């Protein structure tokens, strides 16, 4: 940096300090001028915190099920065209389909079958109804289920059709209250199950189903010893990434059509649920909220900008003699212009900063005190501050131009 540039920077810095002093002397007016911006920025920060809180809730719920997951369910009974008879298609899917998909699909990482039935579970006279799910160890992996205490069942348990169970925290609460369930025996109907572990809590899913109200047993045990059915209710398929889901859905459809519907040219009746699609729908709502926030932010900037503009114009008029004096002492028009633009920017940045602090404090306080789920967004805070400062620079142009236009002697003589 050249010496001249360094000198210039030092002068600017000193000028800013002086400007700050002069602004500080007009405490009330300075505070009033930035109050609009302060309130606006604070409001936007709080709204963003609310919006991000909502979005996080959605994300957490959907991610509880895995965002790179396809769920294939057999469709309910269907009427076949031509021959009016019920085909029991809901019994169509087989465990072998999961193996076939794993084998044939290029995009699937893993696939697993699952059976479900709502059943009564008992422990020493206490009953509770829960969803009993039979799946493979792969199924546990795909659905991100792990043990918080004890262990999960393994392939050998599955193979040997052992009567072992993994309980969700909700079931544990219902049956055991505070007692440790691992090692105890629960009964489903007359079938005893050894509790080998408790799953990690997963909360509720996107439609509000309690994911922890569950009893997991090995797939073979469930199908042969408990339900006695040859078919499965659902297939869980995991994609390499969320981006592959659409292609994977297509692939799975092809594979299943090949296995069931291909011969008669009929569409095989099954439903494929795509977690990414669910996520997109929920995100759409969040985006509408975002647009609202942007609208409010623009209004806030406009209102705040007008406040600062008004005060800066008054300030230029009132400080005409100061401007004349500065000119008399050697300030160029440009120096005066820069001074007022920077003062305006400082005002706006100060108002923006105060707004950010007030907004973050309000959001933080609300998150601490209330049941609200607010996320403090540093991005919104930085953006609020940057927008305020830029607004100040832009707003300052008009008062600064007026100040710079003043003739030294006329300004010095002003009342």
């Amino acid at each position: 940096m050249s010496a001249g540039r360094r000198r210039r920077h030092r002068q600017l810095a000193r000028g800013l300090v002086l400007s700050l002093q002069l602004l500080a002397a007009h405490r009330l007016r300075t505070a009033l001028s930035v109050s609009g911006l302060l309130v606006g920025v604070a409001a936007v920060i709080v709204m963003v915190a609310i919006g991000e809180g909502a979005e996080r809730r959605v994300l957490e719920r959907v991610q509880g099920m895995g965002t790179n997951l396809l769920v294939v369910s057999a469709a309910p009974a269907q009427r076949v065209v031509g021959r009016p008879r019920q085909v029991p298609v809901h019994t169509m899917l087989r465990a072998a389909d999961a193996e076939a998909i794993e084998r044939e699909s290029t995009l699937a990482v893993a696939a697993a079958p699952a059976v479900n039935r709502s059943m009564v579970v008992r422990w020493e006279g206490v009953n509770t109804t829960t969803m009993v799910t039979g799946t493979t160890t792969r199924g546990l992996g795909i659905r991100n289920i792990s043990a918080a205490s004890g262990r999960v069942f393994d392939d050998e348990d599955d193979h040997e059709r052992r009567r072992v169970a993994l309980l969700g925290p909700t079931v544990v609460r219902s049956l055991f209250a505070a007692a440790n369930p691992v090692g105890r025996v629960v009964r489903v109907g007359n079938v005893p199950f050894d509790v080998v572990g408790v799953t990690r809590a997963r909360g509720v899913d996107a439609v509000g189903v309690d994911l922890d109200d569950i009893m997991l047993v090995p797939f073979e045990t469930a199908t042969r010893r408990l339900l006695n059915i040859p078919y499965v209710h659902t297939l869980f398929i995991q994609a390499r990434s969320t981006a592959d889901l659409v292609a994977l859905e297509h692939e799975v459809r092809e594979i299943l059509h090949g296995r069931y519907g291909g011969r008669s040219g009929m569409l095989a009746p099954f439903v494929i649920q795509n977690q990414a699609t669910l996520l997109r729908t929920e995100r759409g709502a969040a985006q509408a909220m975002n647009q609202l926030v942007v609208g409010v932010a623009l209004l806030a900037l406009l209102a705040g900008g007008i406040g600062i503009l008004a005060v800066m114009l008054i300030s230029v008029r009132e400080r005409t003699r100061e401007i004349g004096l500065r000119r008399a002492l050697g300030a160029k028009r440009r120096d005066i212009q820069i001074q007022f633009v920077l003062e305006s920017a400082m005002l706006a940045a100060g108002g923006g900063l105060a707004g950010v602090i007030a907004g973050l404090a309000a959001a933080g306080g609300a998150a601490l005190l209330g049941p609200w789920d607010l996320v403090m967004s540093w991005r919104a805070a930085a953006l609020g501050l940057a927008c305020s400062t830029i607004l100040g620079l832009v707003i300052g142009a008009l008062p600064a131009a007026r100040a710079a236009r003043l003739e030294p002697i006329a300004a010095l003589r002003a009342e």
Partner: protein
Amino acid sequence: MIEVDGLTRLYRRGTLETQVLKGVSFRVRRGEFVVIMGRSGSGKSTLLNILGLLDRPDGGRYLLDGADLSGADDDARSAARNRKLGFVFQQFHLLERASALRNVTLPLLYAEQDSGDSTERAERALQAVGLTHRPRHLPSELSGGEQQRVAIARALINDPAVILADEPTGNLDAQNGREILEIFRHLVDGGRTLVLVTHDRAVAERGDRVLVLDDGRIVGEEAVPTPAAGTRSDAAGAV
């Protein structure tokens, strides 16, 4: 140092025209203390503002330190005001919300040469005007005489060759007025050029030479006898 030739200045407001300066010519040598006197409304301030590059003449020529600045652009005139000229006003014109020290450093914000330690320079300038004990005071906390000293220190900080003062003692009592003139005398003895406007004969007597302005022209010029001589000469020579 200063050379003006046929300066004219016409104020126009609507159809009303006032020819304030009707051709003013004179010279001020380097290191000279020249006093401009004249009735109220004779155009003294108008003339001094033109000399100070705060106002432009309508006609005539003005050379400051050999450079003709009457046609120069605003930036060049601003730079010359900063570097070559120091102003002292009757109303002091200090920033009310800034300390004495900060008021003195104000011209350094616009200096085109490196100023070094500005506070140190301001302290030295305040020392030169005999005001060292209240650098952090606001103007409102200073007496009129002290405020004018701050203003003179401000005029001195860029070490200008020429100091222009428009009734610098007009708002001061006799004692303070004398002290301020003492400071001016000192500056001139140190080699600076001073042009001072006043109504006051007693003030004028401290100068080297008095120019009398009347109706837009210099109507008289008198050499002021040295105070040691103890006599007063009214010998006037037309320019």
